[in-house]
């Protein structure tokens, strides 16, 4: 039974990922004094979209039809390498964190090409900006992984978050806080939340992710939204795994509940940030990400001594 727990964790992740966007929207509504959409709204949306037909633009070719499925599978494969709390990941091998980051990059590759396939200037704009920000956010993510690897003495995500979890906090707590902070910034950048993009609007000012999904419809859009939710879960698992109290050995349900709670906390924080902060000017985004990279290098220097 013990060997099946990681698989159950993956099933829980697959089931609970769309819930996080519901949490974010509810928190934003709370700050705005509204009641807000139901927590399970994304589930209803996906169900509705799956039952719809599709409209394809005549400009698009086979790539447009291929991209959402390929992106979803890439993110799904990346999910298999993420440990969940006190239980290891389903698959792990030395260097799997590189594969995870590049699988998320593969999803971005599909999205960018699908956006350019439509021949629309909206999607082109979003694709150009996404390509621009990804240069920095992936570098910051790798530097964070390097800091975590130096702290935990392991070259596998499983080892970093699960095996050496307690040991990381003993090395140097304030430095780890910095790493968690930088991971949170990467989460915001890669998932196109404030202060990097405003997911509410579809205007030229804020077009990055929402606009790339503009021409998809039906099952394609369902796959895109679900992949976005999974990506949020994957990137939120990293700081949650670092913050997880590894000293205690909870049973399966306690572990799942605690982990879910940590990710929901991240989502709530994201919602609060979106309500209270404004989006950065687009020229300031590289500066912010460079500062984040500098912080992670500082953490690496402190952790490696």
């Amino acid at each position, binding site marked *: 039974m013990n060997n099946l727990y990681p698989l159950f964790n993956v099933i829980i992740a697959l089931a609970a990922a769309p819930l996080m966007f519901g949490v974010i929207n509810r928190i934003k509504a709370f700050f705005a004094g509204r009641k807000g959409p139901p927590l399970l709204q994304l589930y209803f949306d996906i169900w509705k979209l799956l039952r719809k037909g599709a409209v394809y633009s005549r400009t698009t070719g086979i790539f447009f039809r291929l991209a959402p499925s390929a992106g979803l599978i890439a993110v799904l494969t990346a999910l298999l390498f993420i440990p969940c709390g006190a239980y290891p990941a389903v698959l792990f091998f030395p260097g799997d964190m590189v594969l995870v980051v590049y699988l998320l990059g593969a999803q971005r590759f599909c999205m960018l090409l699908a956006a350019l396939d439509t021949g629309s200037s909206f999607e082109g704009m979003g694709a150009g900006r996404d390509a621009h920000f990804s240069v920095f956010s992936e570098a910051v993510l790798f530097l964070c992984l390097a800091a975590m690897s130096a702290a935990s003495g392991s070259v596998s995500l499983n080892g970093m978050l699960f095996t050496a979890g307690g040991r990381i906090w003993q090395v140097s*707590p304030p430095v780890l806080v910095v790493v968690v902070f930088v991971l949170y910034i990467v989460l915001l950048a890669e998932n196109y939340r404030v202060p990097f993009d405003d997911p509410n609007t579809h205007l030229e000012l804020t077009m990055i992710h929402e606009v790339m999904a503009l021409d998809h419809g039906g099952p394609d859009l369902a796959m895109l939204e679900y992949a976005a939710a999974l990506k949020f879960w994957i990137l939120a698992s990293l700081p949650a795994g670092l913050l997880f109290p590894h000293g205690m050995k909870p049973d399966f349900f306690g572990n799942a509940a605690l982990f879910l709670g940590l990710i929901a906390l991240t989502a709530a924080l994201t919602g609060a940030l979106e309500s209270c902060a404004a989006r950065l000017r687009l020229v300031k985004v590289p*500066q912010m990400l*460079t500062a984040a990279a*500098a912080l992670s*290098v500082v953490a690496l220097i402190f952790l490696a*001594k």
Partner: protein
Amino acid sequence: MLDVILMLLVLFNLFSLGSTRISASIRVVAYQGAAIGVVPLFLPGKIPGGILVTIVLVTLLVKAGILPWFLRYAQKRVNVRREEKPFVGASASILSGVAALGTAFFISSRLPIPFAVASPFIVPVALSVSLTGFFIIISRAEALSQVIGYLILENGIYLFGIALLLEQPLLVELGMLLDVFVGIFVMGITVFHISREFEHTDTSRLSGLADWLPEVKRSE
């Protein structure tokens, strides 16, 4: 706890490098001074309790109280809000700050330190604070920014001193503090005079001391 303060010092460094607003820099220098002021409380030393508390209080008063107040007064008189034309941009400054931290760690790993220090990070962080101060002096044109850089440099030297020279008597510490105080006072008066005479405090344009001026295009 000492590690937390040292990490905070490094973060303040990076913040002062990345921000071009004078008022934000003054606030950061005040916080940095406050953080350095409380460091002696966490060091194992032979100084009796009462004297230790006096040192801490005086340092806090000067570094986090008097000097920042004076700088703010100077800023209001000179009426400068932000650094208009730094020689090095914000991102490049932050990356240089990280490089300075790395260099400080490298240097401190080679320095032969005869006595035990409370934390392996004190000497590198002190060196990096000094290097940051130097960098700000070199890379900023605004006179007030250079004063802020000088303050950060003095913070670093002060931290280095109290980390390693705990056996020294109280007078050395107070002497350093007095030296900083007088220096800032003199600098402030000079800034007033510069502003009154030239109607600006952009030190990159103050090159009248040179006998020979290269043909340089003035970018106004």
